[in-house]
């Protein structure tokens, strides 16, 4: 037993729990009830500036803790129930995004996160952009904002999980 583990343990005990208290649960039932409150999410960056990624990181962090509502980030679309797409779809990522969507087993959902994913946002009309996410794959949930705050992201994910 060295100094570091003991110090870390003391810090854990002293910090305690910093997660925000949970807001009231969503009113509507989830769109895909078979998922039964557990949704594996595969995040796809189709061309974003990474602002939305920072907010996603914060939403899954210790303060907002989206995992307590049943949402979990996974590495492969084969393991996923839903895709979490950020950014406008650039020309390079169009085919990759479509292949990722086809690799997700059904029933599947797509969450388009941010103004860029909804209508190309600040990058509308740029030469490298192929279109919004809905132009490439069917979208089920939009989360507006540039970037959307973590509370909005958590609310959207709770709408899918139903918890």
């Amino acid at each position, binding site marked *: 037993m060295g100094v570091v583990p003991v110090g870390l343990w003391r810090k854990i005990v002293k910090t305690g729990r910093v997660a925000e208290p949970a807001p009231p649960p969503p009113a509507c039932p989830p769109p895909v009830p078979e998922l039964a409150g557990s949704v594996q999410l595969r995040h796809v960056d189709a061309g974003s500036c990474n602002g939305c990624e920072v907010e996603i990181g914060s939403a899954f962090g210790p303060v907002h803790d989206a995992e307590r509502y049943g949402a979990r980030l996974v590495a*492969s*679309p*084969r393991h996923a129930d839903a895709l979490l797409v950020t950014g406008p779809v650039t020309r390079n990522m169009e*085919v*990759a*995004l479509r*292949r*990722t969507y*086809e*690799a997700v087993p059904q029933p599947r959902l797509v969450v388009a996160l941010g103004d860029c994913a909804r209508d190309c946002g600040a990058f509308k009309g740029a030469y490298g952009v192929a279109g919004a996410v809905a132009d490439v794959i069917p979208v089920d949930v939009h989360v507006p904002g540039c970037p959307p705050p973590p509370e909005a992201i958590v609310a959207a994910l709770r709408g899918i999980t139903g918890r």
Partner: protein
Amino acid sequence: MTLYVVALGLCLAAALVPGAGRVAAWIAGLLTASGGALAAVAGGLALAGHGWQTWLPDLLPPVGVRLALDPLGGLFVAVTGGVAACAAVYGIGRSGRVVPLFVAAMLLVPAAASVGTFLACWELMAITSLALVLTEHRERGAVRDAGLWYAILTQLGLVAVLCGLLLLGHDGFDQLRAADLPPAVRNAAFLATLVGFAAKAGIVPLHVWLPRAYPEAPAPAAALMSGAMVNMGVYGLLRVGLDLLGGGPEWWWLVVLGLGALSALYGILQAAVASDLQRLLGYSSTENMGLVLMGIGTAGLLPGSPAGRLALAAALLHVVNHAAFKTLLFQAAGSVTRTTGGRNLDAMGGLRTRMPYTTAIFAVGALCASALPPGNGFTSEWLLLQSLLHALPGSGVAVAVTMPLAVGVFALSAGLAVATFVKAFGVGFLARPRSQAAELATESPPTMLAGMTLAAAACVFLALNPGLVLSALPGAHPVGGLVTLELAGLTGSISPLLLAVAIAVAAAGVLAALRKTGRVRRAARLWDCGAGPMSARMEYTATSFCEPLQRVFDHTLAPEGGVDVRSAKESAYLVERVEFRASVPDRVERTLYGPVLAAARAAGERARRLADGSVHRYLGYGFYALTGALIVLAVLA
């Protein structure tokens, strides 16, 4: 005895067939195959109790040639005959005239009943096998290097066996059994012969010729050497240790057990990280012979007890099983090498569609070699494990300490064996071809397929029916029963046949159930991260498959390698060439043989000063030697 003599005669006739055309080669091959088959029957008869002995005083004056076939020798003659039949059929038209001589020598060694005969046949076996290893020496330089190592180690082994057997003082084996020798002589003789026989069987640290010689020898020769010749080391150990010297003090068998455990572990570890297919199979031979030696050591430690006799039976059954599946594996590897031109597993792959029959046969061999049910290796390794587990009650401190260690070593080597053969089969034969040569591979010709099928049939027979072989083994042992093997006096039973049937029924049931549920299947694209199509070069290679194992055993394996970066003259940032090297050398060779060879070279360099070309010095040598000899003779007389 007539069958045995006829078998020998057929092999000698095959060696003497004149002519170099295809017809002559076919005749020689068929004669060897029939000689091998007859020898297998003769060995089986000796096992059943029809032994014989004979003395030919005119053949090797002054002691003559004594031949005798008892059940132990009969077992090894039968195994050799079977392997020779398969290898001869496999190599019809391709083997030279040395193969029948090699087979004849290997048939003679277990039948030798005097020291002179034994040594003569042993040396004949060594010389013919050396000639076989050097067959392709004109095509590759590595063959000469391999031949040199093999020759030196074989001859050193012969010297050790010679010293050991000469220490015993008598010629005939009957006289040796009856002789009463002082313990010091017995210890020295046992240790000397152990060194020689361990070198032949490929036991660490005398195994270094195996991974060098097997890749360079042609496939039928490698199959013969691995399936039949390494068994001669085991035969010698059993004959001298258990039969002629009649067992011995405990420490003999502890040494044997320790060497066996070390070989089993080191051999399979090196096989697990080998990318050269024949080198992998060679190290697997070391592992299997190590397991056999563990069984023999246990049998010597606990003579007369059920666990000891079971260990000996398990070791002998493993010799038979190993001969069957190792012959098969080397033949399949030889077919692959012949058609792809290389031995590197990294460059193979995709052979399942191009060589379906060879792939199926290699799969059978890999299953048997990895000691998983329903293969034949499973039965003998299970019996060996049972003997190690049941050895404990009331047998002394040494046994109580070594048996748990032996069980641990056994378990680790069995696990690594599974990984090794999954790698050899999966990476080598499945997926897509990783090189041009693998894409253009074609199926082997029918004679090679016939030879492989014979060996595969033997493997399947041994897997489903070990009870028959076990009931014929020499020495009373506690395994009984045909369908279910029961261990008398110990708890435990196993039924390989029922296991195989159960696995087959379960597999068929699962397949039928899957087909009946009628799930909707859709053709989907392989997930490749969304980017372009995956090329065959992105598959697991042998090196990447075993890299986690290599990292775990980093300290033992001491892999070597490095990255060489050559940059342009103008600037160090402009890279012209990057070269990456990775290899796992044989650590025993590095640490043990390296210093010995360096010392020998240094001694040779220093000795050059003794012969520097000066005539005066040479005359001086002659003068002093002559006067010295005269003085000694004067003093003595």
